[in-house]
């Protein structure tokens, strides 16, 4: 894959819930190794956009391309076909996702959460998956919590396990859906630190967040959304310190 081609490309993506248009012809692209932060008021469509990227929400129209392949559909000769759930599952392995509410599997320990998909989906050897799982726990600073169940962990620790669980599938891109919004303020820092480290390691990331300092420091590209459209996008320093649109200005003014 040439470096000029974006890893993720979103073209004219629209989505409505009933009569409410949540996304209106969104275009965006994410380059390999880039960190893209999506900010905006609640209800602006930023989470829906993220969930359309891996087809958790099915867009009404428009296409997401991952490495040039359309997500959720495939060419069969000259006919475009909807993917079966299992074909989609194979495609989704390339896009890790971290949720606001962690969604760890409560009946499995931290380590079991991490090795589940590598063993069941990728059919990796158990010993190999466990070794890699422990290395990932090390990376998020939770090696000694490997055998704890999610409810024995704090919110910040659960979210770090959830990040490790996604990384275990070696995804090409990581999607974060407000990863720190459900956390107590003093636990936000530990999760953001892990995400900063990931960004430094060169992981391609798309992050929906309210953490403006994270967006300013880490993002290569900042997108401001409101009312289902991208109002403003660019390098975070430009968008944050010199917003062009009144809606961006109003949103940023409320945060400061």
């Amino acid at each position, binding site marked *: 894959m040439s470096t000029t081609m974006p890893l993720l490309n979103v073209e004219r993506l629209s989505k409505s819930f009933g009569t409410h248009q949540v996304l209106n012809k969104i275009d965006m692209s994410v380059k390999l190794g880039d960190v893209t932060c999506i900010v905006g008021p609640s209800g602006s469509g930023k989470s829906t956009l993220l969930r359309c990227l*891996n087809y*958790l929400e099915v867009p009404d129209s428009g296409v997401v391309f991952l490495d040039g392949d359309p997500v959720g559909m495939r060419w069969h000769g000259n006919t475009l076909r909807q993917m079966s*759930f*299992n074909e989609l*599952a*194979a495609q*989704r*392995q390339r*896009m*890790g*996702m971290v*949720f606001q*509410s962690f*969604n*760890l*599997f*409560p*009946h*499995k320990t931290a380590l079991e959460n991490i090795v*589940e*998909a590598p063993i*069941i*989906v*990728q059919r990796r050897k158990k010993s190999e998956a466990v070794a890699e799982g422990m290395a990932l726990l090390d990376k998020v600073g939770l090696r000694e919590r490997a055998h704890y*169940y999610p*409810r*024995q962990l704090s919110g910040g620790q659960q979210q770090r396990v*959830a990040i490790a*669980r*996604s990384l275990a*599938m070696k995804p090409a891109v990581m*999607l974060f859906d407000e990863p720190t919004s459900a956390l107590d303020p003093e636990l936000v820092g530990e999760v953001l630190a892990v995400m900063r480290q990931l960004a430094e390691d060169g992981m391609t990331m798309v992050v929906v967040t309210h953490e403006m300092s994270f967006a300013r420091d880490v993002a290569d590209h900042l997108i401001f959304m409101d009312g289902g459209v991208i109002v403003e996008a660019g390098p975070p320093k430009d968008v944050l310190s010199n917003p062009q649109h009144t809606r961006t200005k109003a949103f940023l003014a409320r945060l400061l």
Partner: protein
Amino acid sequence: MAQDLKSPTSARPDIHETKPRPLRHPSWWIGGAALSLFVVLFIRLLVTNENLHWDIVAQYLFSPEILAGLGRTLLLTFVAMIIGLAIGVVLAIMRLSKNPVFQTASWAWIWFFRGVPPLVQLIFWYNLALLIPTVSIGVPFGPELWSASMNSLITPFSAAVLGLALTESAYAAEMIRAGIQAINVGQTEAAATLGMTRSQTLRRIVLPQALKIVIPPIGNDTISMLKFTSLVSVLALPDLLYSAQMIYSRTYQTIPLLIVATIWYLVLSTILTLIEHYIEHRLNDGRPLELSLILSSLFRIKFGAPRTEVSK
């Protein structure tokens, strides 16, 4: 102070050094005494009433005929529960499927088998040969590969299993459906983003969590099933009750043999209740439910070994 003048407090102990005398409950004692009197009278009735014939109860309690009936009752309970639960899981999944044909078929099954009394079903299944004389397996509208007469397939035992298991399947389906629906949608989304297929998600993520929720109602149903098996006496299947009936039809010792059956039903339902409590307790402890755990809990109850583990 004025109060000090009215009643001198010098004789009282320091309030910080003494505890208030506990409240007395005379009504507890009166009510308790009255009820105890009735209990004593009832026990006296049980001991002194000669029609009860405790000697005959003791004589038949462990008789081979009764024990064989006991074995059949247990076998019937567990076979019907296992088949009922297996069908129930399938029905629950069909009910939650997006396919309207599956949904409707599952709904109709549950509607029918929950609506028809098990006793009616037992008699119906037993007389199935009147409706369908022969069964055959073959290509539809084509050649026949295998066939048998219904009379040879429907024995009292198979009719009993059918009737009880199908009734249970309808109840189990609703329980399991509720259990599956109680699992947060975030769990299936997380599994989907990890690339799991639908069946992997169901087997590895959803069902293990749903099982934990439905264990208490399943335990309850097992105890109900134990008692429902006594209905099979109408099919002349020698279960616990029918074995007792066969004996008293020979000996005319009706009451003592009914007591024998009652004692065994109570013993079995007590054991089942203990097992259920134990499993529930373990689940509340938070440890995951594993087969080895259930087996070890069974083992401990039977042999009364004390629990030594300390929960984390």
